[in-house]
Each structure stands twice: as C-alpha cells, then as structure tokens.
C-alpha cells in the first residue's frame, strides 16, 4: 500500500481547542432538554447561593484533545492521520497532580496499522457516508470519537471521589460525576424562566431542572462564574451549564458546584476562553499538547516518509 501525503492541515476545519464546539454544540434530538418539556427539580424559580463547602477528595478533572496531523491518500481514498490524547488531574492534599496521560495516534479510514519512523497510527474504520462533501466531516467525526473513547476509558479507571468532565456527561460511573458545558447553543429554559439567567450574580445558580438525553436522565443548572472586571457585561458571559446524572444527593452536588467552579474560573488576561475554561483543565490541555509531541517534528517525519502528493 503506497500512501502519499495529501495535506498536513485541515486549516478551514480547525479552530482553537478543536472539538470544543462539537462537544458543546451537540445537535440535540427531540427527547433532549427542550423548553417545551421543561421540568424544574427545585422550587421556587430564583437565583440560589450556597455556603462554601470543602472540595471532596479525590477530585478528578478529565479532558481530551485531538489533533489532525495529516491527510494521506493512496490514489483511491483519503485517510486522516491524527493524534488523540486524554488526561486527568487529581486534586488531593491541597495540590493538583497530573495523572499519566494517554496518547494514541490513529488513522481514520486505515485498515491496518501504519508505521512511519517512530510513529504508529492505529487503524480506525470510517463510519457514515463516503460522499466527497461529507468525507472530511466524517473523518473528523472519527477522530472525535477516538478522543471520546480514550477519555471514557481513562475516566473508567478513576475510582472514588468526584469526577468532573469537560462537556456533557456521557459515561456511566459509580459515584458522582459533573459535566460542564461552556458554550450554549441549545435552549433548555422557556422564555419566562430564561429571564433569570442575566440576573445571576457570580457565585449564584439557577434551580435544577431535568434534562433527558439518549435515554439518560440528568439534572442540570446554570451558574455564573466571576469574570473580572465585574460590572457591565453581556448576559451570556461567564455562564456555565452543569449537569449530573439524576441520582444521589443532587442538591448537595449543585451547591458544591458553587464552591468548585467559581474558584477555578480562569482569568481573561491569561486565557482567551476565560472564565469558562477552568484552570486545571487549561493546565491539563497544555500538558496534553506537550505529550502529543511537537507538531513540527511530526510533520517532518510524515513528510520524510510519505513525501508529497
């Protein structure tokens, strides 16, 4: 099988924090949270505060990254080579520690492993349509699924304590899980209830309401993160939607989230995605990027072994 390099980048498809938009902007099915099927879990509908509580230990944050490394072609089809990584940080005894991240290189559309120098790309079958229009999207979707799979595998190994994941809660786990959504494409609240969101002050949350997704029953709420300088700001900024499976002591988790997320909000000076991109997760993302290796070096290896198209 003679592969040649087709392109090293999918520039038009890549934004900052690839996969970011996808995880937050999942296209909802009809059964999911929807203003029409709104069901509050707490009454009355007004902003809520909570007293600070100590963080549970261990406290895990899991996140993943993906990176397109090349498009290659053997004259008949395109294959996307990419790198996915997932990692966790754990808070225990007052310090954030990194756990050993997992890094895999995958070739979406490959049928057998591809060895290029020190790099090994594992085969990953391509699902979905093969039309030229959707091909790139399908390839990217394959890469995204590889990342999600890696994240879930990693999260499965973390026992005890509380797990915080970036994005919607998809995995099943013994013990509490919190997912947080940074960007809000979908509306979960009817208009009269949504009026509460702009009124939320930093450190306040809405009451919980129910969300259904893919057969999962979830509790969800919005909270406002601190965003310096305080004062004038658009109503959407600093909002985080948090969700957790509908089990256990939900109220305590919702109150705990007010002690947790505002304290970990990032600062706009240091992070363009502040405040929703949480501090430990930002650190974890940088670490993952490092573990994926230098993009330049990978590109050189690929170019050396595959040449041009």
């Amino acid at each position, binding site marked *: 099988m003679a592969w040649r390099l087709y392109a090293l980048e999918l520039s038009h498809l890549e934004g900052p924090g690839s996969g970011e938009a996808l995880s937050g902007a999942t296209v909802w099915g009809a059964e999911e949270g929807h203003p029409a099927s709104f069901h509050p879990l707490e009454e009355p509908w007004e902003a809520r505060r909570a007293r600070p509580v100590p963080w549970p230990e261990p406290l895990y944050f899991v996140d993943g990254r993906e990176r397109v490394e090349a498009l290659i072609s053997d004259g008949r089809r395109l294959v996307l080579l990419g790198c996915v990584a997932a990692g966790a940080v754990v808070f225990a005894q007052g310090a954030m520690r990194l756990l050993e991240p997992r890094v895999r290189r995958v070739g979406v559309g490959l049928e057998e492993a591809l060895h290029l120098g020190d790099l090994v790309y594992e085969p990953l079958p391509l699902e979905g349509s093969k039309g030229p229009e959707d091909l790139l999207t399908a390839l990217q979707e394959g890469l995204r699924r590889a990342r999600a799979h890696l994240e879930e595998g990693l999260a499965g190994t973390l026992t005890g304590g509380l797990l915080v994941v970036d994005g919607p809660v998809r995995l099943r786990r013994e013990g509490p899980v919190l997912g947080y959504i940074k960007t809000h494409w979908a509306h979960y609240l009817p208009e009269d209830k949504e009026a509460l969101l702009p009124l939320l002050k930093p450190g306040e949350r809405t009451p919980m309401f129910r969300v259904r997704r893919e057969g999962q029953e979830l509790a969800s709420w919005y909270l406002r993160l601190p965003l310096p300088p305080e004062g004038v700001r658009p109503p959407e900024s600093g909002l985080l939607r948090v969700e957790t499976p509908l089990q256990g002591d939900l109220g305590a988790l919702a109150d705990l989230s007010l002690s947790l997320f505002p*304290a970990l909000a990032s600062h706009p000076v240091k992070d363009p995605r502040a405040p929703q991109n949480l501090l*430990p997760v930002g650190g974890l993302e*940088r670490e993952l990027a490092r573990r994926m290796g230098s993009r330049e070096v990978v590109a050189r290896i690929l170019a050396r072994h595959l040449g041009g198209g």
Partner: protein
Amino acid sequence: MERIGVVLGRREATPLEFWVGVEGEGLLRLDDLVVVEGFHPKVGKVRYFGMVDLVAKAHEGERFDTDVFLAVGGKIPVSLAYVAHVSVTRIVPEEFFPPDPGSPVYLARGEDLGLALYYDAMKNQRGSTRLPVGFLKNGEVAYLNLEFLNGVKGGHVNISGISGVAAKTSYATFLLKSLLESGVLEEAHQARVLLFNVKGEDLLFLDKPNLRLSEEAKEEYHRLGPPPTPFGSVRFLAPPKKGGEGILPDVETRLEGVKAYHWDLVQFAKKGLLPFLFTDKGALTNLGFLVAQVTEKLRRLAEGQKGPHLLVADWPAGELPEEVTFDDLGRVRLKSFPDLVRYLEYKLLGPETGEGEGDKTWTARQARGTLEAFIRRLRSSVENVGHLVRGDRKGNPPDPLEGGEQVHVVDLAKLSPQAQMFVVGSLLSDLFAKKERGQYRGRVFVVLDELNKYAPRDEESPIKDVLLDIAERGRSLGVILIGAQQTASEVERRVVGNAAIRVVGRLDAAEAERPEYRYLPTSFRQRALILPQGMVILHQPEIPVPLLVRFPFPAWATKREEVLEDNSAEALRREFF
C-alpha cells in the same frame, strides 16, 4: 556510583558544557562533581567529568509569573524542573564529541572525583605532590599541585579579600601549616618562612595552642594531613619601643619570647638600605639618581667599620651640632639616625650658615632643588625610622635565614607606613640577594599582606622593584611569595599575574566585577560576595574550574584570649628554672 539525573535534550549538550536534569530525590548543588559516560561506535566509551556551576528550579506548566499562586493553591497542575549546568573539566579519553541527551549522570566520588580534578596528575617521579588545602563542599579533601606552588612548574600564591571577613591571614597560615607539616613538601625542615604581621598582633601567637579548637576540628586536621598543633619553631621579632635607652619590643599582648629588631648605622650603610626610605622616587626624576649616589657613598664610608656607630672623618669641628662628639682618633662618631641625617645635610648642602656648598663628590652635580628635596624627605623620615636605625648598640635585624627557627614573624603593625616600607623592602632585598648568591639551599616562603601598599599598580617604589623581582625570578631561586591584598585591581599586574595559585575570600561587590577576577566563572564571582568565614575560592593552573574550599579552624591562637595556657608542672618548672 550514585545516579543523579540525565543529560538534558532541550538545551544543547556540548563537549565542554551541558545541562543535567536532576531526577527524583536527587540532590545536586553548586560545585558538585559529576561524571557522564558517552559512547560512539567509532571512538568507544568516553567519560566526561564536570563541575556544577549553576543549578535552578522552575515550575513547568506555568505561563505567567502569577500562575505560581494558582499552583500553590492547587488549582493548576505543574511539574517541578530541577536542572543544573555542568562545566566539563576533563574528558577521558580526549575525544571532543558531545554526550547524548538522556545519558545518565552520576555523582563523581572517590577515584572519579580525583579524575575530575586531575588529582591523578599531581605527582612526580619521587611521589605525590598533592598538597591538602582544605575540604571540598562534599567533604572530600581538596588538593593543589605543590609543583605549582614551590616553584617547580609555577610559584607564588595570591590571596584577595576584604579585611575582617575574608580570612586572608588565616588561610595563609593554614597553607603554611600544610606546606611545612603535611609531609608533601620535600625537605620541609629546610624551608624557611618570613611572615609579616601587618595589623594587630594576630600572628604573635602562632606557637600557642588554640583553646577553641574543637574535637571535630582536630579530626579534620587528621583527615587532611598536618597535625592539629601550633607552629613548633617560631621566632617573634617586633620593632623597639620609641624613646628610652633600652631596647624593648613594642608589643602589648604577648609578653615573652618577642625580641626587638633594629639595624645599626653601619649595617644601614653597608647593606645600602637608604633607598627604602624613598618610596616615591618617581616624584622627582633626579631624586632617584641622587639616592643611588648617596647610597653608594655611604656604602664606601662604612667599609671596614664594625659599628654600631658610623665614624666619619670629614665633618669639621666648626660645623658640628652640640651632642655629636669626636672619638680619640679625631673622627666624628654618628650615634643615631638624626646624626646621620645632619651629616648628610652638611655633605650635600654645606654648612648651616648657608655659606658655601655641599661636597661635590657627594652631590653628583645635582641641582640644589633636588638636594633640598632629598634632605627634606630624609628629615621627615627621622621620626618614622629613628628607632629602627640606631648607632648606640649592635644591630639585630631580622634574618629568616639565620638561627634555628623555621618561621620568623616580623611585626610591623605599630610602625608608620614609611617605616613598614623600609622594613619590608630591606628584609626582602636582603633575603633575595642572599638567595641569589646561593647562601641558603632551602625554600623560603614570604607572607605579605597589604600588597597594594607595597606594590601599587600606578606608582614606583624600590619595594615594588624588589617584589617584582621576587614575583618574576623568585620561583627559580626558591623564594615564594604568598601575597595578600584587599583589592587585586590595585596591585601591580605582574605581581598578581605571576602567582600560579589564586585564592579569593569574600570580595567587595565592585571589586568582584573587575577584570582581575575574570578567571572566576560567574557563579563563583557571585558567591565571592557571600563567602562565610573559613571558606575560600582556590584556583590553580591544572584545574580549569576554581574550587570552593573550606579550611579548618586554626590550631594556633590568633589572639591573646585564645591561648591555651599550659599549666602542667613540667611547663611551670621550665618557666622558673
């Protein structure tokens, strides 16, 4: 071999320097010695020895300085990087290719440490020439190659440091102790030491045990080599007290065992010591000629005389001052230094009445202004050296090559600067002349502090000439100068430059930046500002890096209060009978 880390790959590794990442619980400090093994199929195994000259820790994963607060608060994950920069001191075999990043790095101990610091090369056909000079930071003994000190391959020691905390004198005396008693110097019993005591009376107790010497310090002496005892064979000389007829040494804290030294007029004339009273001979061009002329005249005058007074036959009775008398042969007897000055005044300028001129055979056609300048200077020196140059009793000048004692301590502390110059210049020129004539076989070590006074960079003086002579030719004659000064930048370059061994105690910040200390790597220059007492930085020609050396507490007293009194019956009996 204790593995301490690996060679870093993020920064370039070169054959002469590389970075090390310290792993796990490893401890790597400044001055630690490490060894790395490299391999290349065409060359085989190569070992790199080096010294750590920079260590740093940093948080990786922080992008902003303020991130450290987040890391401390447990909000972001960081990893600690602990890295060290190594300057290579030696490559065995000498194949200059870089070590591979990722190569394991080991602490150099024992034999490896010896290789790193070239201890294995410190020997000659007769045996080891490793002179113990203190302890390294890791507790091992630091050596220097004696052949670079005693004149075989190089000679002289130069010690710099601010006064009071740099321990220049303490280190010089410790070095002497090691030289004389560690058994490395051949024929050490024949070596002689001339020590000038320039301030206080710290060196007047070299032969007394120090009562503050702890058991640990004694143990350290045993590990180094020389015994933890005071100097056994010392002679103390101090200038006589001014005024009065008797000759009593002018010392305050030490009451026994100090003798007074002085020259008599005949010795003064015969040895030609007059120039050492003129420390500014550059001030007037012609003055130098005149000084040389008068010195020569005095030398001839003293020929055949026994002293202590000087007899002159050409001073007519009419011109004599009151207290000067004739002897039975009709010659005038000069009985003191002021008499000599008056006589010279008469010979150069003529009678005091101002009528007539000086003796033309003495004036050497010099202009009257020069003659007057000469006499003015001579007169002003009467107060300073009148008690050192006398005509009333036989001279007893210090002579480190005479007598049975090995160490001669000559006290200068109470003398005026001019008299100090005179004593140092006279002694050194005399010593050097004797060694040139081959009158003494053994080596002579001269310890002189305040070099910036005796050999200033931008002035001329006869003492400076003597010191330059010693610095440039002394090592072949076996005269070794252990010089010290507060600021090497103000000492004649050739005096400092000829010292093969350089020692630095605590330095002043401005001084440390001067070019004289450029041979020290930056980390050492920075540390020279904060060196504690008892630590010095020692540089020697064979080792490309300086060593930070700690030397033990002196086993001899450095002041009256430290003297350990010997009250045994035996000692008391010796004292009374």
